[in-house]
């Protein structure tokens, strides 16, 4: 068991242990390391940018592909449809007007 005086002495010695401290020296190649790190960070940033652009392009391509595909499928279906449909009978303007004013059907005769 230490006396209070001894504890005080030891505490003060520890507190003063940093007196006359010699400054630690940084790595002599610090500048070269910093330069390398800056280049590495730029390359990483560029790679991230490229990856992002690649993903965006892939999404855009997929979007265009889906649109082109659906356009092709719908178009094909619309071309095939007229084969089964009835031919449309074209009317001249005079025939259309006469039909409107003098209907041949008896739909309106009560």
């Amino acid at each position: 068991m230490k006396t209070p005086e001894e504890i005080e002495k030891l505490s003060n010695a520890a507190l003063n242990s940093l007196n006359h401290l010699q400054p630690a020296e940084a790595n002599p190649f610090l500048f070269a390391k910093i330069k390398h790190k800056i280049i590495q960070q730029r390359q990483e940033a560029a790679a991230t940018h490229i990856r992002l652009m690649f993903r965006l392009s892939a999404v855009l391509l997929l979007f265009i592909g889906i649109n082109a595909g659906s356009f092709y499928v719908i178009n094909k279906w619309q071309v095939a449809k007229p084969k089964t449909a009835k031919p449309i009978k074209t009317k001249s303007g005079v025939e259309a007007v006469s039909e409107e004013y003098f209907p041949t059907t008896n739909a309106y005769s009560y």
Partner: protein
Amino acid sequence: MTEEALINGLLKRDETAFKTVVDTYKNRIYNTVLGILQDADDAEDVTQDVFIKVYENIGKFKGEAKLSTWIYRIAITQAMDLIRYRNRKKRGGFILSLFGANKELLYEPPDFEHPGVLAENKEQSVILFRAINKLPENQKTAFILQKMEDKGQREIAEIMQLSEGAVESLLSRAKGNLKKMLSAYYQSL
């Protein structure tokens, strides 16, 4: 090269100016960061990051303080950020370990021997650094700037953006707390 010329050089992305800044301040910044982090590898990494920040953010330097003061501020912020990150990881790791999810060892800084301490003081300095680690952030920063960088209260006040009175109070509280911790340690032996 004057400080103004250095700043202009950095703004123009001049490599010579950047090299001069690194060579002028690297030892001071490394020492401060080493005192805060108490690990040579971490201190070197943070010192590199500090100068990268200086290079990239020189446009944000308004010239209200000296360049050295601004670099010190960046260094202290970077070092403290690393400690906060480690502590967050430690707390998160502890919570996860309660659920048995994290088998990773929690971060505990090892005993630190500063390379510049006199041989006869090595043992006491290890105990002192252990106590410094337990100080609140502001007290730790002020104490390290005074003890390791030989900074005066005015300069510490500029770096920490506090009044001189506040720095004086921080230093006195830091010394008081350290004395209490050291006494408790020697009592327990």
